[in-house]
């Protein structure tokens, strides 16, 4: 299906740019540059929260649910099923996680969250794979259903329990354990309180070095077990999908199900597995919200994170490393907004825009360059004239970033070729 809308992508491809390969390295480079800029801005503005270990810890726990939802989206879309019901599956995960968590403890909550999300995924698979319903329609319907179901079940299960009500569950029994690396971040070895070297370095405030210490300490100090597990799921997903025969088969269903069918792959079964895993990952993201990020179920707790996860996956070009980068970026923006430290970011935005303007001048795109320069000056003025950014506006940072990324990079992105398209067994032509 070649419509005129898809033309730019085709041109790109002909020029020999391989979009899939670009994201990993480019993201790493972008990350290093961004880190340098952050460090300098932190040093010059004195806004230590920009790279403090506290910020990083917070950013990590905000990034995990987004990343898990994104991984869920990746599994499903790699098999060719668009999963816009991630939000609904995440809601099921939060409810189930809290329900099991308040009775038997956090790990039962995690297990129940996985199951709850997987059931949502199963429903999506039944509707889209077996019945051939439009993927987006089914996803929207599941999100509507999940919200109602969670509310109803809360009334049934949580009302009357101590601390529970129609829109919130009792607190999860016990908090989930955390790990802290000894010596580097002050973890305990036996009964011995080891030194906290990174904190000492962080407090010196030396540019780059202190920032690096802040980031490292944030990733090694009081990190919950579930966070560690979630981070490990990224390389695991990569390995399963890109380095095993099963993964190759699953991805072939997303690229060309007809060809996959002709090679004897049971496309329906593959899609079912992918969508159920997808739901389970979204459910895990929900369970993380109730067991780690907070201590109980609250209605509306997912707050659109399922959609942001989907955006992180697109940002990451349907690849695990890219989506982890996207999730990290969104988590970081979210954390800065919560700790009211967004003002210095205006400088960074101004710098990025200025850099883009210079690049456009070099490429002789003067109109774009002028627009970029004007915006850069506007952001710089905003920074120098005001003392803070209204918190209400900041809360939409991840969404704005997503739009900008899609605007600038959408032509480099390449989704699985048969993503979202209906497939009927034996009806290919």
């Amino acid at each position, binding site marked *: *299906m070649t419509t005129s809308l898809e033309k730019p992508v085709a041109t790109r491809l002909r020029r020999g740019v391989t979009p899939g390969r670009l994201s990993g390295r480019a993201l790493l480079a972008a990350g290093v540059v961004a880190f340098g800029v952050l460090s300098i801005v932190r040093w010059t503005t004195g806004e230590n929260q920009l790279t403090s270990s506290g910020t990083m810890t917070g950013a990590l726990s905000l990034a995990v649910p987004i990343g898990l939802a994104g991984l869920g989206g990746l599994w499903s879309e790699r098999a060719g099923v668009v999963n816009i019901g991630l939000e609904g599956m995440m809601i099921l995960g939060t409810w189930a996680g809290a329900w099991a968590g308040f009775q038997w403890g956090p790990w039962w909550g995690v297990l129940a969250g996985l199951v709850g999300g997987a059931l949502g995924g199963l429903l999506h698979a039944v509707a889209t794979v077996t019945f051939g319903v439009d993927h987006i329609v089914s996803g929207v319907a599941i999100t509507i259903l999940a919200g109602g179901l969670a509310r109803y079940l809360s009334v049934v299960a949580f009302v009357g329990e101590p601390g529970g009500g129609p829109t919130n569950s009792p607190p999860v029994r016990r908090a989930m354990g955390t790990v802290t690396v000894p010596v580097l971040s002050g973890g305990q070895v036996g009964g011995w309180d080891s030194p906290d070297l990174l904190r000492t370095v962080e407090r010196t405030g030396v540019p780059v070095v202190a920032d690096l210490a802040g980031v490292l300490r944030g990733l090694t100090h009081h990190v919950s077990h579930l966070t560690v597990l979630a981070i490990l799921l990224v390389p695991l997903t990569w390995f399963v999908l890109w380095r095993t025969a099963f993964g190759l088969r699953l991805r072939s269903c997303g690229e060309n199900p007809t060809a996959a069918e002709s090679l004897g792959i049971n496309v329906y079964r593959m899609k079912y597995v992918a969508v159920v895993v997808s739901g389970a990952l979204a459910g895990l993201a929900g369970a993380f919200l109730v067991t780690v990020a907070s201590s109980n179920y609250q209605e509306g707790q997912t707050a659109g994170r399922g959609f942001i996860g989907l*955006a992180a996956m*697109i940002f990451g070009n349907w690849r695990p490393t890219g989506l982890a980068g996207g999730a990290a970026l969104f988590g970081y923006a979210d954390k800065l907004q919560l700790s009211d430290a967004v003002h210095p970011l205006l400088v960074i935005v101004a710098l990025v825009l200025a850099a883009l303007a210079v690049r456009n001048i070099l490429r002789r795109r003067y109109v774009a360059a002028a627009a970029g320069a004007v915006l850069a000056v506007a952001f710089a003025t905003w920074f120098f004239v005001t003392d803070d950014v209204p918190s209400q506006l900041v809360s939409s940072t991840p969404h704005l970033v997503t739009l900008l990324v899609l605007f600038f990079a959408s032509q480099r992105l390449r989704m699985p070729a048969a993503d979202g398209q209906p497939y009927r067994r034996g009806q290919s032509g």
Partner: protein
Amino acid sequence: MTARRESLRRIALTMGAAGIALVVSLLVSTVVLLLSDADPVEVFTEVVEYGQKPAQLVNMLNKGTGYYLSAIAVAIGFRMALFNIGVDGQYRLAAMLAAALGAAVSLPAPLHVLMIVVVAMAVGALWAGIAALLKVTRGVSEVISTIMLNAIAGSIVAYLLHPDRLAVSVAGSNNIGTEPLPASARVPGLRLAGTESRVFGMVIVAMLVGVGYWVLLNRTRFGFDLRATGQSPTAAIASGVDVRRMVVTTMLLSGAVAGLVGLPQLLGASYTYGLDFPAGIGFTGIAIALLGRNHPVGIALGALLWAFLEEASQILDLLEVSPEIVRIIQGTVVLSVVVVYELVRRYTISQQQRSVGEQLAAEEPAVEGARA
């Protein structure tokens, strides 16, 4: 004659599909009711009786008006295979800005209302237009961009709805909202026998929008192009349709209708956009457009059903059934409806293929004879 039989069969199938979906949803509700120790028969009778009282009918109509407009906005996109998930952000931004501007100017009555309507439509269209531009210039999927724009619209509304900016405190509560609209900007309600409450005057506008939608899609060149693009972009391009322009126009239209969604409530009841202004009607609209199969009459029935279920939830409390059961019923209705519609669609196609095959088989000898 065959064409008439075809269309009769199509209507029968559609009704049948809706009937099956309704039966499935009733079954699910019965199971849920039984699980929560209620007597389904008693609950259903009470609910139906309650829903027929005039005051409840008025509430249903009033709620349904907003749902209807929202679903029409979604349906305009659906007919072209465009998913405007952003109706929610479009109507909230539109209603809030229109409310603020409407309170700031003074005009004679009809003009004042007209100005608010035009502003709301323009804001909704512009907000949807962003997604359209992103799609045609950079190929960004409208599903993702409208979801993001929803969140951004939400934060803009939150930012502007602040005492330092467009909001004032509402007398007698700790709510804040835009300045109340003057009398000249209010749309009078319609009377219904047997109750004090009034039906929103905007219900007439909603009906006009429904008629306009039908005429536009079925009786104009634009509507034909729109449906053609939705069913087969390649065929549409081959016949000279400018798909990019169609995307932009359709999104602008959908956004303009979305801009109207908040107005029945704004001009007919609340007269201010406050923190408690109804949110989420955009998502309800998606569900109702699916229920009504993008047909203006079907959507009206869907909107009324949805509003009826929400009204009915109020009596469930008295019957000691938790009212939240309604949300499960709504979700089940939508899901079973989309599945049943898909099955019917496939059945229809296979039937058509068979009947065409039979016709061809019957004509074959004649064709051969002509050749010889």
